[in-house]
């Protein structure tokens, strides 16, 4: 039966993550962006929320609940509301864990999942995006070729979060006509982590380019063994994650602009009492809500094991556009002050602009 009300358990997750986002992430976000670094205690506290472990079954070291995209998006919205760089940082191990959870062979799950969830935050990551305008996850330029029992992988990746510290990478590569993923451990010959990247937004998140020159890995490192992966299905978890983060970022921008507009006076009254400001705010709220519902719906389809590519792609496309529109208007509503970095809205615009680029950078 259709319902838009979270269950008690879902509400508890929302409340818990929201508190962390408001108390921990938001106050530290400005400095993190300026200094391009995130205090480790914030990450440690975020990890203590137990979001990833609760998606991993007990036999692999988690809390034994089933992995639900819907639960994931509820949490992701709050993390996005806190700070996008920190959210992506915290969710980086998901990029490694969730594909293994869904597609890993029994051996791969046994080997990796406990390492990811049993201790503190552990930097495991994934490399999907490539540094070209025509990046296409269905036609990667990073190529894997099989020679007997060994894969030879070569290519160039970008936007690999936490690569400098990562203990292992899930590297996506083209194998014949399909996209497959390979688990490559740190220090493998031919794998080079390049300079830290610099982007207009998500500046506190350390990301790197990655070069793979004839990297050799045993065939057992191919995710899912002979079966391999379905990249479209896997990307659904990324699409809804990013859509939810976008909703969180935009919600923050809307709230900030709304509060500002109520207290900022021009021409003898609060600027919010002008329709041109008030209507922008109304549309921002409508778009945030619509994108949220689209995200919930797509996540629900994923959890029902429907082929959710259509819903997830629509939700993401919608949220990409929405995040840009809402953050941009927030800047406009603050006027000149919106352009000044002491107010967070310009940062949210820089972050919000990225969503159309971020496919594969987050997963729930």
């Amino acid at each position: 039966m259709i319902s838009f009300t979270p269950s008690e358990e879902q509400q508890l997750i929302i409340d818990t993550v929201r508190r962390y986002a408001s108390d921990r992430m938001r106050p530290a976000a400005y400095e993190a962006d300026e200094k391009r670094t995130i205090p480790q205690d914030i990450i440690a506290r975020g990890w203590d929320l137990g979001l990833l472990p609760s998606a991993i079954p007990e036999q692999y070291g988690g809390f034994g609940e089933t992995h639900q995209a819907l639960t994931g998006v509820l949490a992701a919205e709050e993390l996005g509301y806190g700070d996008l760089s920190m959210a992506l940082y915290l969710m980086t191990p998901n990029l490694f864990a969730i594909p293994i959870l869904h597609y890993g062979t029994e051996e791969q799950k046994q080997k990796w999942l406990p390492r990811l969830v049993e201790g503190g935050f552990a930097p495991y990551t994934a490399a999907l995006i490539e540094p070209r305008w025509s990046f296409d996850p269905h036609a990667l330029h990073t190529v894997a070729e099989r020679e007997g029992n060994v894969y030879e992988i070569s290519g160039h990746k970008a936007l690999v979060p936490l690569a400098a510290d990562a203990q292992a990478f899930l590297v996506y590569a083209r194998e014949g006509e399909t996209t497959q993923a390979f688990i490559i451990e740190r220090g493998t010959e031919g794998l080079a982590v390049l300079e830290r990247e610099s982007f207009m937004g998500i500046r506190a998140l350390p990301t790197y380019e990655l070069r793979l020159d004839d990297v050799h890995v045993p065939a057992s490192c191919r995710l899912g063994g002979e079966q391999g992966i379905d990249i479209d299905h896997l990307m659904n978890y990324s699409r809804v994650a990013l859509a939810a983060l976008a909703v969180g970022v935009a919600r923050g921008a809307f709230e900030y602009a709304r509060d500002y507009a109520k207290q900022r006076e021009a021409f003898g009254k609060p600027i919010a009492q002008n329709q041109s400001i008030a209507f922008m705010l109304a549309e921002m709220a409508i778009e945030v809500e619509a994108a949220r519902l689209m995200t919930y719906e797509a996540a629900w389809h994923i959890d029902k094991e429907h082929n959710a590519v259509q819903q997830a792609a629509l939700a993401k496309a919608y949220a990409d556009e929405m995040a840009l529109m809402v953050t941009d208007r927030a800047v406009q509503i603050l006027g000149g002050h919106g352009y000044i970095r002491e107010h967070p809205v310009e940062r949210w615009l820089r972050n919000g602009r990225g969503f159309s680029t971020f496919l594969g950078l987050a997963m729930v």
Partner: protein
Amino acid sequence: MIDFEIPTPIKRQVQFITMLGEQVMRPVARYYDEHESERPWDYINLIWPTIRDRGGRSFSVEDGTEKTDKEGKPRPRIGYLMLAHVVEALSWGDAGLYLCTPGGALGGAAVDATGTPEQKERFLKRFGEGEPKWAAMAMTEPHAGSDTAAIRTTARLSEDGKEWILNGEKIFVTGGLMAAKESRGFVVVWATVDPSAGRAGMKPFVVEAGTPGMTVTKLEHKHGIRVSDTAAIVFNDCRIPYDNILGSPEVVKGDTEHKGFKGAMKTFDATRPLVAASALGIARASLEFTVSYLKDRGVKVRYGVAPHLQTAVERDLIHMEMQHRAGWLLVLKAVTKMDAGQENALEASMAKVKAGQVATYVSQKAVELLGPEGYSCKLLVEKWMRDARINDIYEGTGQINRLIVARRLLGYTSRELR
């Protein structure tokens, strides 16, 4: 728990209406577009028994009785959810014909939202029996549209206190001809009992069809939804029984505060999501037709494809689809809250803003994508575009609903944000 499963009875109902839309409504849609004042009796006679058997409450909430499922557990109410689906599906068939559906319509909704139990019984019973009947709601006047508080139609008590005497002119009354003249229906007329009191003086009155002093003076010629009659109605010393003022008469005698304007707003909370649903039914018709027309000609929509590989047409279609879906989810949320008995004014206006905009955009884009075919009267696509356009205008224009949303978000009164 967050869930998107639509209850089976609703799915079945939608299937049935889809069939009706394909087999009964669409084949005659063009004819009635071209014969503006003709009544679509074929459609009316076909649908009336269904409406009548549901008590004619096509625009109203489920009765108050608790429903239970097979195991005797209370079942959540789905009245408005059902209604939104019904309205959407009928509008998918043809929005003009949908507006000609006999029953309470907006007039019934006003009675439902503001009437006493006795009044509901007295005025709504007729829709469950006999021949087809219509009700209508008359708020708008020549000089008062969006600014409903500026209406000038007056209601004064007769000397003996037994009757109300109405004077004024109403325009743009949907179904006004059928409700006031051509069936045993009624018109809910908003009038002021105290012109100096503004909103507080506004009250709804039920005027029975054929009441002397009530005259239909004009039928409008419109851009779209042409089969639906849009009437001007003049009240000239029109006398109605004292008890035809909706709500408790005591409220009138004592204070002239409250009820009036709030009653109108409460009606809109119920009807706005349904207007939004109608808008999105037209949008879906336009979108589905465009997608299948193009598919037959080798143009497919691929989802999840890299942006630089999307064609311009694909991008448009995906954009239309996501906008449509966004609107529909907002409608579902607004009606779900209504069914749960929760305050939904914010959600109702949000859905209306979005749906009005989406229906206009999607239906206009469909004409564009189909080129000369889209513009041609050979297909219904151009008609759907004209039909869709009204939805950003009536039941509160896009701007008025944005005002309502903004006031709620900002905590402003209508004086602080106008």
